[in-house]
């Protein structure tokens, strides 16, 4: 099946693949169209569309693929055969380029790393307290057979002035979420923002749904996905910068979204992704950064440890869920067996007590099932989310290293050119000399600019990461605390129910004579 073949690139590396994506990002930045009466426009600074500027510097061949990979979606199995413009049941690719809000006049040298502009955004935050709640609901199957997909209703409730209305809903499909994530990742990851990863794809799960299997496991799958999508959106909007991103706003508000079109693994974009990934792996190994700032080393170590612990915890909790489900099955079986024993028992009162015991155990079985769900949805999924988030965090540190490398490279190049210039002084060909001297002077000027830019970029990404990490840690602690409290409360409820059931059984047991 062609679809599955495309699924080769693993999901986790969405953002890695697109890290140089600034160049891959489409040109709408230059279309100068501004949306009429868009409140959002006023709040967003000129940098909202991310780093377009670099494309002016780099003659990056990747630009060639800009159009083709405009809306990269890695969600292969759910899509129609690629690029088919055929009868797509629901969402039509009508796109007003609403993602462009602000003209970019006068910002040709404004780079995305300028600290001040982001400061502005954060100051504006102060005026509009964070009040937004997103829910993902009403999964509904659209279409039939292998082209079918699930559409989810995304409802936003908010009092923030960022939005046109205080309550609104749109229909989205899974690939839309992936598309949103890949856009955000391409804009923000490489400058140090921790972009929450999107939920994972699942070929098996979706195939079941497509095929129309209306059984418990496919219902569970849909619920798991729905819940994951909801958490994903909430995490994304909790980020003060991401919340104001026009792609996010469009995602939440627009009734129609341009289809995030997938690309085949063997397409130019797909190949590019693979090459980039390989290059990254090599680079990571060869970059030996002189870490002047102990904070970063410390934090990286901290995140490594955290990663190990969380993965371990996740495994244990998954085991817990599994065993609790087993317990539920065993309890149900025992209940049936006890009922049969009660029927067989010829002493009336004992027989009744045994039947009562069977009923209690049946109710307890239900309790176990509910608890297993809580185990899973509260605890296990939280851990899974954070394991994936940590990958994004680590990615951000990696980007910093790359930025440093870029800076160093520019510096070395500059050094070389300066040496070349010096050599030119001693050359014998006077007529070519002036031309060469001028050329080199130009190159040196350019490189000096690049070096300065590189240094600024590096400082900026370092600053951003510091802020992001502190925000991340605060969120993490809060998140865990909230969820663990909820989980403990679910345990309390279960135990209280158990008390009720056994207290009801006790007089029955005492009544045996």
């Amino acid at each position, binding site marked *: 099946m062609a679809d599955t073949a495309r699924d080769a690139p693993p999901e986790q590396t969405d953002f890695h693949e697109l890290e140089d994506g600034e160049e891959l990002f489409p040109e709408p930045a230059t279309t100068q169209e501004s949306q009429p009466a868009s409140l959002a426009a006023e709040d967003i600074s000129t940098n909202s569309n991310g780093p377009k500027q670099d494309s002016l510097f780099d003659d990056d061949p990747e630009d060639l693929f800009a159009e083709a990979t405009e809306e990269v979606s890695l969600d292969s199995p759910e899509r129609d055969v690629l690029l088919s413009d055929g009868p797509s049941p629901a969402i039509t690719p009508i796109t007003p380029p609403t993602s462009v809000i602000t003209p970019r006049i006068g910002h040709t040298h404004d780079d995305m790393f300028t600290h001040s502009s982001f400061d502005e955004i954060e100051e504006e935050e102060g005026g509009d307290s964070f009040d937004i709640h997103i829910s993902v609901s009403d999964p509904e199957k659209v279409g039939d057979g292998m082209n079918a997909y699930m559409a989810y209703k995304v409802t936003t409730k908010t009092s923030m002035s960022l939005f046109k209305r205080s309550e609104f809903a749109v229909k989205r499909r899974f690939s839309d979420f992936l598309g949103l994530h890949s856009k955000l990742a391409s804009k923000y990851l490489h400058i140090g923002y921790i972009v929450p990863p999107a939920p994972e794809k699942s070929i098996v799960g979706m195939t079941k749904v497509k095929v129309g299997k209306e059984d418990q496991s496919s219902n569970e799958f849909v619920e798991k996905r729905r819940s994951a999508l909801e958490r994903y959106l909430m995490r994304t909007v909790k980020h003060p910068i991401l919340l104001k991103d026009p792609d996010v706003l469009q995602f939440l508000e627009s009734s129609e979204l341009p289809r995030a079109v997938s690309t085949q693994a063997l397409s130019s974009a797909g190949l590019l992704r693979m090459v980039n990934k390989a290059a990254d792996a090599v680079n990571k190994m060869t970059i030996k950064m002189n870490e002047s700032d102990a904070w970063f080393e410390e934090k990286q170590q901290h995140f490594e440890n955290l990663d190990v612990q969380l993965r371990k*915890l996740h495994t244990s909790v998954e085991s817990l869920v599994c065993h609790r489900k087993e317990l539920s099955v065993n309890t149900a079986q025992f209940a049936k067996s006890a009922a049969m*024993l009660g029927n067989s028992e010829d002493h009336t009162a*004992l027989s009744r007590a045994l039947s009562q015991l069977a009923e209690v155990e049946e109710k307890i079985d239900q309790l176990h099932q509910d608890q297993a769900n809580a185990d899973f949805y509260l605890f296990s999924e939280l851990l899974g989310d954070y394991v994936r988030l940590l990958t994004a965090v680590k990615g951000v540190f990696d980007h910093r290293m790359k930025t440093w490398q870029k800076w160093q490279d520019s510096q070395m190049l500059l050094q070389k050119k300066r040496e070349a210039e010096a050599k030119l002084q001693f050359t014998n060909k006077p007529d070519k000399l002036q031309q060469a001297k001028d050329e080199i002077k130009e190159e040196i000027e350019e490189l000096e600019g690049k070096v300065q830019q590189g240094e600024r970029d590096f400082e900026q990404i370092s600053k951003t990461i510091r802020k992001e990490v502190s925000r991340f840690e605060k969120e993490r602690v809060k998140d865990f605390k909230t969820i663990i*409290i909820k989980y403990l409360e679910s345990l309390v409820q279960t135990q209280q129910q158990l008390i009720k059931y056994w207290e009801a059984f*006790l007089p029955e047991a005492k009544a045996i004579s």
Partner: protein
Amino acid sequence: WQCVYVFWSVISPQLRSVSVDLNHDASLLIDIPDALCERDKVKFTVHTKTTLSSFQKPDFSVPRQHEDFIWLHDTLVETEDYAGLIIPPAPPKPDFDSPREKMHKLGEGEATMTKEEYTKMKQELEAEYLAVFKKTVQVHEIFLQRLSSHPVLSKDRNFQIFLEYDQDLSVRRKNAKEMFGGFFKNMVKSADEVLISGVKEVDDFFEQEKTFLLDYYSKIKDSTAKAEKMTRAHKNIADDYIHISATLNSLAADDMTANKKCTTWLLEGRVASDQDLKLTELLRYYMRDIQAAKDLLYRRARALADYENSNKALDKARLKSKDIPQAEEHQRQCLQKFDKLSESGKKELTSFKGRRVVAFRKNFIEMAELEIKHAKNSVTLLQGCIELLKSN
């Protein structure tokens, strides 16, 4: 694995008997106050307090091994005079395989766990070991108490030897094995299964009992197995909780969780072992007891078959006019034996039912009370944790 010396009497008396309180006749009181585990062998201290003159001393103890109990059981089963009685089921062999295996696995996996996790797992295993220990002592004790409270069996000579003989019983045991040959016994048993269903029952009471016991046996066997699975799943969850709490504690260095204090996780293990003791052990015990009752029915069925055969033999003798007095005598004996078995059998089975009902009642009540107690403890602990987390 080191020895575990247990002062058993410290443990709550409530947990001690699956069956009813059998020690109400003060003339002969038996208990197992402690036991010692050496390698694979468990040595029980059997303590007797008696006012009966048939014993040499009023208060004495002897060390006994599991095999001694089996010897005693087997001699009782083989005694013709007791054919009409339900012989209390033999206690099963102490089985420490499961905790021992887990301990071994734990040792192998030590490197992958934190020190705290390892310690907790070890504690849980020790508790499991202790639970197996408790169970085996309990079941051996009940066996003896059933005997001591039985009007006929309590007077058995071998029973007295078992209680009193202060030397090693192993010599006697060897002789007994040679005499009775366990293999033959088992063969006879399976033949009986066919017999019992085949024989034509003349007595309504026994007809009903037969139907009831056969059906009940298969049902209780099934329930026992299912209850065991439930308990095992509970234990698995308890183990998971240990790993989870250990990992949370290492994360707690981030000041994020107060779960250090949440020992609620460990309660799950307690629930599992208490449930095991009450429910699973109850079912298991009565499954064996019902087997013993079935054995009684088999013996009676065999006696009936013998009687019918003797009738046929008598008829043949009369026909041939040969050996008539022997045949008549044989027939008379068979009938006598059968009547005796029927009479005592009826009594035994009736009292058995009463015993069973009382035991179920007692254990159900205790089980419900324990569940409530544990759940209440859990709630208190959990709510404490929640408060702690919310206030931080």
